[in-house]
């Protein structure tokens, strides 16, 4: 039953993996600098690591916005967000899972009579706008640096491009890590307050209740990447193919930095330590940050025809997506509660911590399932890597043989 409730979150994770991985590896795969297979494996591993190791920062912010304290509520919110994302995508509007889930949480707050923390909400809104702006600034700075380096070094074009290729893989891995860390809150954030699993001891390390959910969510993202992101990556690559290889690298790096900044509690603590204000830990839209980065490079290069329609659509998305998702969530909660009689949450006593007011989920079976699932994933992953290694070896050997045969016939 618990797993059934999680399906909507897992579906949301799957769609996030299918769509958002293209922001990280799209240009590399689209320009054929990195093969999809390589990109998918790297992105999946990095997303899982980012989500499990660093996913708590942004989740705390969503929890502050609304601590959903019933599994039925969490399920409905994730479903409402997923449907909103699907519909917005259908109307080809640049949609963000983040905006959808925030809208759904506000819908839950309204339905259950909980207060929406305006300070947290304004923090989230500001970050949505500052994310793409920061992305544009980072992109301009990095682009200046990389072009200056290229000119000054006098490096052979092929060597430079091979460095870019390595860079795209490394930065892509960092981007996928940041995506996992920043966006896992969208997928599993609404389930965190409703779950309280016992720690899962895996010998070398143990996973907390939240981390177990992040692991499940990130696995769903990884499945999304593996199964459905190829087409999206190829489309993204084709759409931004005018970007040079170094510009593609800059876009991914700048975008990843922005995602990382808004999800690193360590960096935020460091800022506070040196007397600067703390960085808000907010899940942001990787698509919109990437658009910001591309526009930044365009502005630096003096491109006059900035696509204002696209900018307008993004701004519309900031408002339309949360409103639509909020309305969906509100009405869905009404139906789920009154027709199916499922508990979707209740008003939180503000004197208690969110966990204190939420139900505790019996977790013995759940932890076992996660343990076996993790083992299965590790074994399957190792087998897949070994299979790909064999395939790669076979391909190289066959190519070598065919070339030798060709020259033998020619001479």
């Amino acid at each position: 039953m618990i797993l059934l409730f999680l399906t909507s979150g897992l579906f949301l994770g799957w769609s996030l993996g299918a769509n958002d991985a293209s922001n990280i590896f799209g240009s590399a795969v689209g320009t054929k600098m990195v093969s999809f297979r390589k990109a998918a494996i790297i992105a999946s591993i990095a997303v899982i690591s980012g989500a499990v190791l660093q996913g708590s920062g942004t989740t705390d912010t969503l929890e502050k916005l609304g601590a959903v304290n019933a599994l039925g509520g969490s399920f409905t919110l994730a479903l409402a967000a997923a449907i909103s994302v699907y519909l917005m995508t259908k109307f080809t509007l640049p949609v963000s899972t983040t905006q959808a889930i925030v809208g759904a949480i506000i819908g839950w707050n309204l339905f259950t009579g909980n207060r929406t923390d305006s300070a947290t909400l304004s923090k989230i809104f500001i970050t949505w706008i500052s994310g793409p702006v920061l992305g544009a600034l980072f992109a301009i700075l990095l682009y200046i640096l990389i072009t200056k380096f290229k000119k000054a070094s006098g490096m052979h074009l092929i060597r430079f491009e091979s460095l870019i290729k390595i860079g795209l893989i490394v930065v892509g891995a960092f981007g996928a890590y940041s995506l996992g860390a920043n966006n896992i809150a969208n997928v599993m954030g609404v389930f965190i307050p409703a779950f309280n699993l016992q720690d899962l001891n895996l010998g070398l390390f143990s996973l907390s209740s939240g981390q177990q959910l992040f692991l499940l969510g990130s696995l769903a993202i990884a499945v999304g990447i593996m199964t459905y992101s190829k087409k999206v990556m190829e489309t993204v690559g084709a759409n931004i193919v005018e970007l040079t290889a170094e510009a593609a690298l800059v876009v991914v790096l700048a975008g990843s930095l922005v995602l990382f900044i808004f999800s690193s509690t360590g960096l935020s603590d460091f800022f506070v330590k040196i007397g600067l204000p703390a960085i808000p830990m907010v899940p942001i839209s990787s698509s919109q940050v990437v658009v910001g980065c591309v526009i930044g490079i365009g502005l630096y290069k003096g491109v006059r025809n900035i696509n204002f329609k696209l900018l307008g659509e993004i701004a519309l998305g900031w408002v339309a997506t949360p409103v639509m998702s909020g309305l969906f969530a509100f009405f869905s909660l009404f139906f789920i509660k009154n027709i199916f009689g499922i508990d979707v949450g209740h008003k939180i006593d503000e004197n208690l911590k969110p966990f204190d007011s939420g139900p505790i989920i019996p977790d013995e079976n759940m932890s076992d399932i996660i343990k076996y699932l993790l083992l299965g994933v590790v074994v399957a992953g190792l087998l897949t890597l070994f299979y790909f290694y064999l395939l790669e070896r076979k391909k190289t050997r066959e190519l070598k043989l065919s070339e030798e045969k060709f020259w033998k016939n020619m001479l």
Partner: protein
Amino acid sequence: MAVFTRTTKNLILKIDEFFDNVELGLLVFREGIKSYLENDMESFSRHLQKVDTLEGNADMLQMSIENEMITHSILPQHREEVVKLIEELDEIIDSAKRSLYEISIEMPKIPSSLNKDFISLTETSTNAAEELIPAARAYFKAPYTVREKLIKVYYFEKETDKLSLNTKKRIFQNIYDIDLAHKAHLRYIIHHIENISDKAQKAADLLSAMAIKIVI
């Protein structure tokens, strides 16, 4: 990663080797024509063999470069153009080899009064192609300097046109002791030599566009 670096290094070496072959082929072609004009047939046939070998090497390198670029997905955004440039350069050394072979088969009788004109024509035409090589090398290392290097290619190509025109004029208007068929044959040989600078200009046009694309 080691394999990856080795592939890059090998490809760079192969491209450099290809350029060396074309450059050397042009030098030997020039010497071959000079030998023919001096009636030193032994030296001519040695130069012919050398150009043949260099052209064969260039062909092998061209195919190998193309294969490696595709197999290892190197320079995906510029690959087509780089392959095309290498094809155009290969056409130049191919043309040099063909010209020497045609001369060795047809054995045209070049009047000694035209020796100087033929040497100048050969020098200028091969100069145009030779000036292309540093520009092509610069595309990979300093694309900003490609266009300034190409100016010399265009200059020598124009000079070749002028020299070719003057030589043809001399043949048809000032030399009376050879028949029309002989004159037409000489014109044909001039076209062959001139062809090298024309091909160099074609490659220069492509290289110039490639350089702009990579710089902006």
